[in-house]
């Protein structure tokens, strides 16, 4: 007995939007079972990870702060993935964006003025773009798969942080710690709600998503991304160059990852530290898919993933769940999401005996 996947004639649009919800619910159920089986309080783990961040109003500001970079990077990735450009290295572009912003902050240390932050942001975006340009160049010139190059460059970027904060950028007053000095006031992202940690990056994230949604649904640029990703042959016939599209997709997704990086370093961190790469760039891949590659959906998906980050921290202290549990839950969301998508597009048919090869 064999199973065979058959393409459905018309995949249900409703199911397409229900799949993310189902994936999250399945993750909770299966997660509770798995953690119970290995000796933890499974139901407690799910409650702490998925519900406490929502029910405890003190955690809301954390949600916003964690969701902001996920949304910004997720929006960029959703645009690139629409064009079938698989930028997996947003984490690296996020790091280089953060480093570029740090460079401006350190270079302007001792100066003052409202121009410093915008300059840092610009440097961050350009840094992310530049780092994404490497896979784009390799892909368009030498046809090297961008999945591999962008992923590998992530690890190179982490080494770059270690080098910079151990030697040239090391804080002279830091008592030997590998980190830069604390940014000056002018290089820090202001908080927008007094008494909270909610910084300017949060509204920027929502704004980025709204602008991206408008551009993707109304502009020729968005049309180009969609048509190249859906039907590359038709795109060429329509006058859209594939190489140009790869460049645009890589630069936009890299630039937004760089933006997230500079906002993180200037906001929550306020200095460059070894712990700066926090896997936002990888989690944003899940965010992009969970949000159905739609910038508005990415806002909600970013919040869901932020919940698992915040809840993971809660669960560590309250029920002693290891930090890796967060990653397991996030991975389960992606797994069920992709599995669900497959079932929306295909039906599983049982085939008895050896499948007839057929002459058709």
């Amino acid at each position, binding site marked *: 007995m064999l199973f065979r996947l058959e393409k459905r004639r*018309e995949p249900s649009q409703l199911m397409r939007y229900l799949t993310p919800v189902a994936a999250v619910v399945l993750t909770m159920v299966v997660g509770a079972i798995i953690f119970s089986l290995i000796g933890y309080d499974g139901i407690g783990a799910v409650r702490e990870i998925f519900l406490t961040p929502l029910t405890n109003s003190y955690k809301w500001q954390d949600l916003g702060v964690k969701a902001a970079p996920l949304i910004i990077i997720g929006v960029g990735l959703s645009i690139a993935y629409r064009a079938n450009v698989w930028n997996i290295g947003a984490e690296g572009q996020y790091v280089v964006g953060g480093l570029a912003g740090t460079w401006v902050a350190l270079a302007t240390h001792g100066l003052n003025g409202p121009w410093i932050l915008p300059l840092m942001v610009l440097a961050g975006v350009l840094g992310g773009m530049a780092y994404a340009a490497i896979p784009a160049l390799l892909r368009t010139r030498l046809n090297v798969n961008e999945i591999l190059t962008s992923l590998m460059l992530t690890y190179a970027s982490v080494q770059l942080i270690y080098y910079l904060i151990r030697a040239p950028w090391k804080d002279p007053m830091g008592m030997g710690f590998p980190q830069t000095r604390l940014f000056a006031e002018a290089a820090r992202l202001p908080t927008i709600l007094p008494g909270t940690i909610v910084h300017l990056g949060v509204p920027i994230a929502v704004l980025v998503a709204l602008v991206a949604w408008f551009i993707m649904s*109304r*502009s*020729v*640029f968005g*049309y180009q991304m*969609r*048509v190249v990703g*859906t*039907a590359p*042959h*038709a795109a*060429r*016939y*329509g*006058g859209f*160059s594939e190489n140009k599209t790869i460049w645009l997709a890589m630069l936009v997704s890299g630039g937004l990852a760089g933006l997230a990086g500079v906002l993180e370093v200037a906001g929550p961190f306020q200095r460059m530290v070894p712990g700066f790469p926090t896997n936002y760039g990888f989690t944003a891949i899940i965010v992009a898919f969970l949000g159905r590659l739609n910038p508005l959906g990415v806002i909600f998906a970013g919040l869901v993933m932020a919940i698992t980050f915040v809840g993971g921290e809660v669960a560590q202290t309250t029920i002693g769940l290891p930090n890796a549990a967060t990653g397991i839950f996030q991975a389960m969301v992606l797994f069920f999401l992709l599995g669900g998508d497959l079932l929306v597009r295909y039906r599983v048919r049982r085939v008895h005996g050896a499948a*007839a*090869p*057929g*002459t*058709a």
Partner: protein
Amino acid sequence: MDASMPLRLQLTGITKQFPGVLANDNISFGVKPGEIHALLGENGAGKSTLVKMIYGIMQPDAGEIRWNGEPVVITNPKAARKLGIGMVFQHFSLFEALTVLENIALGMDGSLKSRELEARIREVMHTYGLLLDPHRTVATLSVGERQRIEIVRALLLDPKLLIMDEPTSVLTPQEVEQLFEVLRKLAAQGCSILYISHKLDEIKALCDTATILRGGKLVDTCDPKQETSRSMAEKMIGTGLRDIVRAKGRQLGAPKLVVSRLSTHKTGHFDVPVNDVSFTVRAGEIFGIAGVAGNGQNALLDALSGEILGDDKEAITLDGYPLGLLNTTGRRKRGLCAVPEERNGHAAVGEFSLADNSVLTARDRLGMVMLGLINSGAAKTYTGKVIADFAVKALGPGSMAGSLSGGNLQKYIMGREILQRPSVLVVSQPTWGVDAGAAAAIHQALVDLAAEGSAIVVISQDLDELLALCDTLAVINLGRLSAARPVGEVSVEEIGLLMGGVHGATEASNAVPA
């Protein structure tokens, strides 16, 4: 054929319902042993559904199939082959990189030693005069030769009924004649043939009986030799046919599209590039390019539309303006529009709405873009006009292109380009798989566009279409274009020989010694 013999195949009250459409409505007819029986109908008439049920790919909702007088249930193609039903599909399933022998071995139900298989293949080829070298790679074969592989594959099972789905749509006239010889021989030995086609002349020449379907219902079973092509066509379409109307005393204008020494580079392993092609199309002229599939038509269309760029800007000129180095957008802005052969995924995006598909090629000529933003209102209005003017059966501009039938999608695509009033229109296979009614509408629209002074290039494998439509004709073979000739001065045989060109020669030298 003894009248008391049971019918080879008898269908009684066959009915098949799909969501929203009754594909076959109470169909009953019989096929006698050794009979060549035509199944005639427009696209969507239900021919494919019917033969799929005979071949076991689908099950009827109601009705009975009798095989040699016995009621049978054919659960799958393997069961059909076991009964003795063979089928040759319109689209071949062959691996280009493998040899003829390897391809046939892969499709066999049972396993057979390759030496025995080869012996049997040679025997079948010898019996039916199918010339083919079992050791040649499929990629080097012409379409007609590829079809012979499929026929041999079916004949190896010693079928009592052979179903042929639109077998001649890709063949040269000579290849058609050879195919008919094989089929007549088969029929003489008692094998029944169910021959699906919409080419009426062929049915008249070949078939003993014709069953005509329209809209899922059986309209008539007749003797094609007693009918005229026109009478059968009218039964098939249901209304009187319209002829192409041309203005009288038409004068061709000044040269509009001038192609000189156009060549393309080989892009893929099995692609045929165009080689040193030159021709001129004048204002008001319809210029036909005939040829067997796979002789460089795709490369020629891509080179003309701008999807493949050459090295010489003067290789293609429109009203003297060099287009050779412009991409498709640049050429459209100068007035050259094109329609490639493949509809879904090339000329249109199935997953997009029709309005979004209009943006694909009409955005610049019709001002659908302002400051980088798409004016979706303008796209919808234009799409609505295309749907109305070309009688496209679609719910509206918001319908997904992929939800349209092949013929309707083709009408939409042709309409989308023609209503842009291009000064040069290049189309490939404008009526491929389109029913006769829609084909007539598309032909009329092309003639009308030419009458307004546009230059039109039609690349087609359908010679009847080209002869009816074009003023001038040239033949493409292995990427080279023959000299252009006025249609009135050239015979079908001459064109057929040009189409067969080099293929005919290699075929003779590599043929199996029978």
